[in-house]
């Protein structure tokens, strides 16, 4: 089956710094990726997505980078805020209507 893994299970950053969360995926057939943020007691919240025909996509304070050669995905959060503290998941899918495979998540803690 698919395997989506995260390099670092925990990450601590100072408020105002930039955060980078990494993700490796194993299925080269995956062509759609989403980053989710999950706060305690809540469901995953959509942050940003990217399709395999793109290398980079930007949102508000977030950027997702996709390197298909090494099957690597990253989420960059600019000017990290205390409200960004949560568990972040990357999820992969073979196409947008298909099931998603999730990694185990990275816990981001923002230090005031």
């Amino acid at each position, binding site marked *: *089956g698919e395997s*989506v893994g995260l390099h670092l299970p925990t990450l601590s950053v100072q408020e105002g710094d930039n955060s980078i969360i990494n993700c490796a995926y194993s299925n080269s057939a995956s062509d759609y990726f*989403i980053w*989710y943020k999950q706060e305690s*007691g*809540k*469901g*995953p*919240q*959509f942050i940003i*997505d990217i399709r395999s025909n793109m290398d980079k996509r930007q949102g508000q304070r977030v950027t997702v980078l996709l390197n298909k050669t090494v099957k690597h995905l990253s989420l960059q959060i600019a000017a990290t805020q205390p409200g960004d503290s949560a568990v972040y*998941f990357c*999820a992969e899918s073979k*196409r*947008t*209507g*298909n*099931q*998603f*495979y*999730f*990694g*185990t*998540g990275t816990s981001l803690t923002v230090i005031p």
Partner: protein
Amino acid sequence: DAGVTQSPTHLIKTRGQQVTLRCSPKSGHDTVSWYQQALGQGPQFIFQYYEEEERQRGNFPDRFSGHQFPNYSSELNVNALLLGDSALYLCASSPRTGPQHFGDGTRLSIL
């Protein structure tokens, strides 16, 4: 515009019982997927419903079944509950092709 809503929020059952969880998709979404999330893990795909039929299924036994209604809402049923079924059950809705949006889940505890 309401997002994905799930009920109940919490549920306690004993081994061997049956449970039904409910999900109302986000307005405009016609596809519903169900996931199981164990503590400290990422969500695992159970199955997906579209046009009232199960379209895809993950690696879950047939004790897990579902249904989608004409209004796109969905139910997840689990029979013969085991202790290992204790988890957060998440519903996600989407248009046929598009990002999945999740509800806040039902926390199921099996005693």
